[in-house]
């Protein structure tokens, strides 16, 4: 054999070899462990439904964390999973907020009103297009834990109403509806609205659910969910005061905006009406709500010519302020609820997704796979335009929180969600 053939052959062989010899990494094979994911049901409120940007719409529904978890469960024996999607032609559902412009970095936010799924209006309340298919994602925006066993709750909540029929709307309880068909695994993230509704209204409406009532109601829900031997995961209540809704409009930004106007250059204080007591100057320890900015009331003179928020005689209304004392109340209730949730979960040997800890960790500012995440409004990538509900990326982070909690408890290895597939706030 001529040496040139030898070298040519060697060269050809080595090129083939080089192209194919990829390194391998031993990965964990998906296994279900000692849980059964055949029929996974998800209980919860707006966060579970995929609510975002102040509305429930198809894109948000498709990016709900239960949808993500269920998709991942498929590799470990998970069955089909249905979320009560709005019809394709009515994909904007309830309507939602969208960012339409950034002018010098200042956002303009407008309401999406096309392709809504509104079938009628009754007493000023929208009734949405009914959904009649299978349901595994039982997230109902607005529902509180204490609503779970109210008969005829469908007459009080239009998001629940759309899942029912004329015959059942006045009689069914949420828990009966959810448990009508057999289930093998559940997630439960109820309880946020038992305190959030109070907090988001500046503590001016909707009292928190009493702690003992919460604990009893939670126990009842978990007893029912575990009554047929199903395993599950429960989530704690997030730190309500650490969301973009309360961290965007601050004393500093309000003063800066007023000081930037010719008439307001000398203004040093913003006056607020606290929950109790006389109007007073706001401090950095009081939190303002996001609507204080969007409602555009600051500095507007009243009938007596006193500018709104700049004088104790025309203070920022209580509904826009969670004052220092109210924050303490909110924090106390959240802590008590979470203690109940954890102890009831422990007594029933359930996995716990500590949403309080997880969302605080990201709210404080933490990158995930190179994506910077924080509680900052719009640019924080975590909170949608309502400042309360999450972006698809935020929901993906919680989905992984659930998956990790389930895997740790049940010895399963459900694959995590690739968070980089999900967006933050959509820019125009």
């Amino acid at each position, binding site marked *: 054999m001529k040496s040139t053939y030898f070298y040519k052959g060697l060269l050809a062989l080595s090129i083939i070899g080089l192209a194919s010899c*990829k390194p391998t990494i031993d990965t964990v094979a998906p296994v279900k462990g000692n849980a059964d994911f055949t029929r996974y049901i998800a209980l919860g409120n707006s966060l579970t439904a995929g609510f975002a940007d102040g509305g429930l719409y198809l894109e948000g529904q498709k990016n709900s964390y239960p949808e993500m978890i269920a998709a991942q469960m498929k590799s470990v024996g998970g069955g089909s999973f249905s979320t009560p999607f709005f019809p394709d032609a009515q994909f904007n559902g309830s309507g939602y907020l969208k960012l339409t412009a950034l002018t010098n970095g200042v956002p303009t936010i407008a309401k999406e009103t096309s392709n809504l799924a509104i079938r009628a209006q009754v007493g000023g309340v929208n009734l949405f297009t009914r959904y009649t298919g299978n349901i595994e994602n039982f997230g109902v925006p607005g529902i509180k834990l204490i609503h779970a066993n109210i008969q005829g709750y469908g007459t009080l909540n239009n998001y629940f109403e759309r899942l029912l029929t004329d015959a059942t709307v006045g009689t069914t309880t949420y828990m009966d509806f959810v448990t009508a068909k057999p289930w093998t695994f559940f997630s439960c993230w109820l309880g946020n609205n038992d305190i959030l509704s109070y907090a988001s209204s500046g503590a001016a409406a909707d009292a928190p659910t009493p702690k003992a009532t919460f604990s009893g109601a939670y126990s009842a829900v978990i007893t029912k969910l575990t009554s047929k031997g199903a395993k599950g995961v429960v989530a704690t209540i997030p730190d309500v005061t650490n969301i973009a809704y309360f961290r965007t409009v601050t004393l500093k930004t309000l003063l800066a905006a007023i000081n930037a106007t010719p008439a307001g250059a000398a203004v040093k204080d913003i006056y607020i009406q606290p929950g109790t007591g006389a109007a007073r100057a706001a401090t950095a320890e009081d939190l303002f709500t996001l609507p204080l900015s969007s409602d555009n009331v600051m500095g507007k003179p009243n009938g007596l010519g006193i500018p709104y928020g700049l004088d104790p005689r025309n203070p920022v209304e209580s509904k826009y302020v969670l004052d220092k004392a109210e924050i303490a109340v909110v924090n106390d209730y959240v802590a008590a609820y979470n203690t109940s949730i954890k102890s009831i979960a422990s007594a029933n040997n359930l996995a716990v997704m500590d949403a309080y800890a997880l969302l605080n960790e990201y709210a404080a500012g933490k990158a995930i*796979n190179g994506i910077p995440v924080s509680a900052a409004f719009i640019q924080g990538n975590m909170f949608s335009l309502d400042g309360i509900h999450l972006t698809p990326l935020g929901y993906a982070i919680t989905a992984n929180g659930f998956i990790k909690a389930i895997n740790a408890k049940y010895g399963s290895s459900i694959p995590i969600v690739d968070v980089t597939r999900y*967006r933050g706030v959509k820019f125009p």
Partner: protein
Amino acid sequence: MKTILLSFLLIIPVLGFSQSFQVNLQGQKQTAMGGAGAGLALDEAAVFFNPGAVSFLKQNGVQAGAHAIFLKTAFNETGSPLTEYNKNKVPTPFAAYAVFGSPEGRLRFGIGAYTPFGGAMHWNEDWTGKYTVTSLDLRAIYIQPTISLKITDNIGIGGGLVYALGHVDLKKAIPYTNNGQQTTAQLKGDSKDFGWNAGIFIKTVSGVSVGVTHRSQVTAKVENGEANFFNPPASVVPLLPTKFNATLPLPATSTVGFGFYPSAKTTIALDVNWVWWHTYKDLGFYYDNGTQTVSPRNYHDAATFRAGIQNETTSFLTLRAGVGYALSPVGEGYVTPEVPDANRLLLSAGIGLKPSERFNIDFSFLYENVKSRTETNIETNLSGTFKTVAYIPGMALSYKF
């Protein structure tokens, strides 16, 4: 809002290959001998390996060679059953040298052009780490005119001025979409900087030869590099920068090398390199809109151990083999997908063919096995396991005169 928006846009890391982004492929004979050669007066590549040995070369000559780096990296995100691979892009670092002057005299001259730093890492545009990096092309070409003086029959010194031409092209996804299309950023720039290379070569009375060399750090400064954005949302465009400045230290390397000659036909080389990586503390990009992103690196100095042997089997054929072990300068928490570095084992082999007294062909093959490393990056929190192997064939032609 403007500054806040940008601060999350451009946390852009950098760069890499072969003990991080150092590339040790400057001569085919030396590559085949595990990359050792500072203690030898082997061939024209001494311009790089030890300028002090250039005056001990028996002949003048010119050589040019190139390698092809087949870099295979796998990544498995913690908690995911999927393994992702980098794309096949083959960088071809080259080296060319010429040595001239009178072989009988004490003073010799040389010139070299070689690529001591570089990297080419290309991932799929939608991979898990796309927001940390999707592709990196980095190269530094050093051009080094060299003088070498034989002080005595046993001691030579030499040195060269290094003119370093750098080029960087880095791409990553940024967390925006525009009409469903991912937004990506590209930072591209060139640098021109100076450094030096010096060495001492000693033939001891016992027959063992010793070399000590130092190549200086080159601080590559990219000024007015281009910051390009593809598919950005229109509302964000006014906030984006167009230019950037950045500085990347290409670290100094000190080497002690030994040559042993068990027979007239056999040469053994041992080298220890000490790479002064500690100057690579962070990677900062400074943009023309007043924003900046500074990414911590905190590299530490690291050594590489190399051993090689060559045997002139016949007048036509020389066989070579080598082994090396490189310690990674990248500390825990600082591993990035553009430089998924870890300690690595080097195995090499090569043949030299001599069709005529003047004309030589050398082939080398280097295999690098980078240890598997499971890390969570402290800046990006990208968490997973990297595993890399590299196959590096090379060839050089030389002509003696």
